[in-house]
């Protein structure tokens, strides 16, 4: 097993920079998630690590070894693809053992490793079937198994759950996390789903437009986003944003004000739904802010209300249990001061 290091890695396609000076250290045994919207460069970064894309600039190291010019098969990595990429004409057993056979492992070793992986992923009964005879979830497990049997230095996973239905996705999420902890192999996992990132990663690297926006533990990213992009991307429902101006020692927004504490310039206030509460005179809340309910999302245990202020800002308000409000109703709410984050200008860094 080994850690992975990206040193100012850049990938260019002609004039387009898909990944820009990515520098990142992934510790041995760590579960690192690359997350970001489409075109953020997360998959390109993963493919460069796999050796499927050439590095334009910078260095990638696996352990102490620079792998820029090492062929994919000599990098000692295993990858799970989004579409699983199972060999359709081979049985599950042959799919699992393919990599070992190519590496001239002994028959006994192949049998032992395939047996172990099959047992870990409950594939024992399916070993003689072809991929087309399996359900999506089973195919996904075979793809995982194929990576597992190789016992590589690093696992790479490129959105491996995106083809599963919601329920199976949640179940497999836990399964992958458990397996990774058991085996302790360094894992780089790419996803566009921030819930997956938050629930699976030891650390998360948030990417956007080819740049690394922030890297940290899920709690760090959630509580202390480095900039407005990360604040908006991590968390569901997303953080609400409102422009604020400094006026007379106060930060004034659309219907609310808070102490400026020496801050200057136009800022953006961000607040997560759990820090926006219905106004009940609770001391210490910032507000009251009035607005019109635009939508109601009742999830059972809690309800999210989308509320538009007269100035056009939308806040998401979290209400315990079921809410009686309907779209079009006037409501008043307040902001919890500890939950308020401020960002420079419109898109800037956290203040």
């Amino acid at each position: 097993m080994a850690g992975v290091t990206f040193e100012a890695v850049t990938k260019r396609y002609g004039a387009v920079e898909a990944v820009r000076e990515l520098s990142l250290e992934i510790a041995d045994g760590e579960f690192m998630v690359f997350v970001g919207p489409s075109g953020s460069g997360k998959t390109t970064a993963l493919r460069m690590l796999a050796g499927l894309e050439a590095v334009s600039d910078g260095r990638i190291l696996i352990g102490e070894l620079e792998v820029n010019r090492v062929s994919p098969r000599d990098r000692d990595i295993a990858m799970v693809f989004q579409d699983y990429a199972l060999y359709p004409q081979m049985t599950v057993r042959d799919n699992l053992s393919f990599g070992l056979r190519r590496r001239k492992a002994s028959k006994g070793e192949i049998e032992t490793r395939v047996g172990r992986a099959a047992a870990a992923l409950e594939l024992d009964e399916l070993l003689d079937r072809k991929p087309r005879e399996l359900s999506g979830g089973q195919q996904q497990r075979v793809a995982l198994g194929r990576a597992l049997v190789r016992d590589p230095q690093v696992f790479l996973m490129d959105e491996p759950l995106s083809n599963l239905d919601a329920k199976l996705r949640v179940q497999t999420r836990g399964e992958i996390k458990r397996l990774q902890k058991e085996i302790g192999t360094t894992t780089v996992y790419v996803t566009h789903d921030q819930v997956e990132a938050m629930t699976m990663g030891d650390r998360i690297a948030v990417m956007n437009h080819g740049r690394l926006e922030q890297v940290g533990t899920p709690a760090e990213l959630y509580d202390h986003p480095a900039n407005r992009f990360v604040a908006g991307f991590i968390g569901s429902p997303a953080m609400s944003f409102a422009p604020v101006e400094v006026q007379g020692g106060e930060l004034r927004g659309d219907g609310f004000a808070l102490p400026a504490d020496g801050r200057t310039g136009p800022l953006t206030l961000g607040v997560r739904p759990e820090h926006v509460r219905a106004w009940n005179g609770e001391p210490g809340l910032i507000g009251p802010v009035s607005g019109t309910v635009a939508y109601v999302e009742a999830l059972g245990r809690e309800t999210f209300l989308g509320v538009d202020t007269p100035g056009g800002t939308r806040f998401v308000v979290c209400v315990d249990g079921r809410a009686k409000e309907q779209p079009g109703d006037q409501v008043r709410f307040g902001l919890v001061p500890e939950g308020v984050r401020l960002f420079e200008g419109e898109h800037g860094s956290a203040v």
Partner: protein
Amino acid sequence: MTARREQYFTYLLLGVFSLIALAPIVGILVTALQDQSSLASFGEPAGVHFSNFADAWREGNFASYLKSSVIVVISVVTLSTVLSIMAGYAFGMMRFRGEQALFYLLLLGLMIPLEATIVPLYYDLRDLGLTDTYWALIWPQVGVSVAFGTFWMRAFFRSVPRSLVEAARLDGSSSWHTLWRVVLPVGRPAVLTMMVLIFMWTWNEFLLALVMVSDEDLRTAPLGLAFFQGRNRTDFALLAAGAVIVATPVVLVYVFLQRHFIRGMLSGAVKG
């Protein structure tokens, strides 16, 4: 009601076209089975005469012609298939300098008809001492077939998910191993369809055989049939029997492989 009427109309139209397509074939078959003398004198057909085939086979020297055809066809289909698969894989899966220019150059082989190059080709092959040998029939047809085969196989390889090849690479598979063991087994319909097409075109090739060989032992079936027809201008039953003999192998190959052939054609049509 309209839908049903439409359906009837469709069947009617298809029926008419089938008749138009089948009539000459049935005509040849019926003629081949008739009495030679009754045909010549517009007499009533008298029974079924399978002996016409035996007569045609013997008189037309078809054993020799078919042997030549089989030698040429097997050589052309085998060589073209192997070369087309490898070239198609390179053009479909690999990135290399001059890839596009080379591919278009190869496509010229599809665009320029053999008739346009047959004369210089004859002189070239004569200088190489290859005229009047099987090679004069095999190499030019391999050239033409590889142009088509590469085009065909490239389209197939482009339709294969890249991740399959990448997974094999990460699993330690070389390009050679990936091609033959991972990708090609998926493409059996595409390969079989290509083989059937090359088989048919090679089997039916006439002009090349006419120009390149004069030795009777090297004549292929279509060329032999033409000579046979020249010798038996009036004996329609015998002529028809000869035609049936020459056409039968193509029909048999198609019938045996039609399931794969149709699947290959459709996958090509859908995936482009």
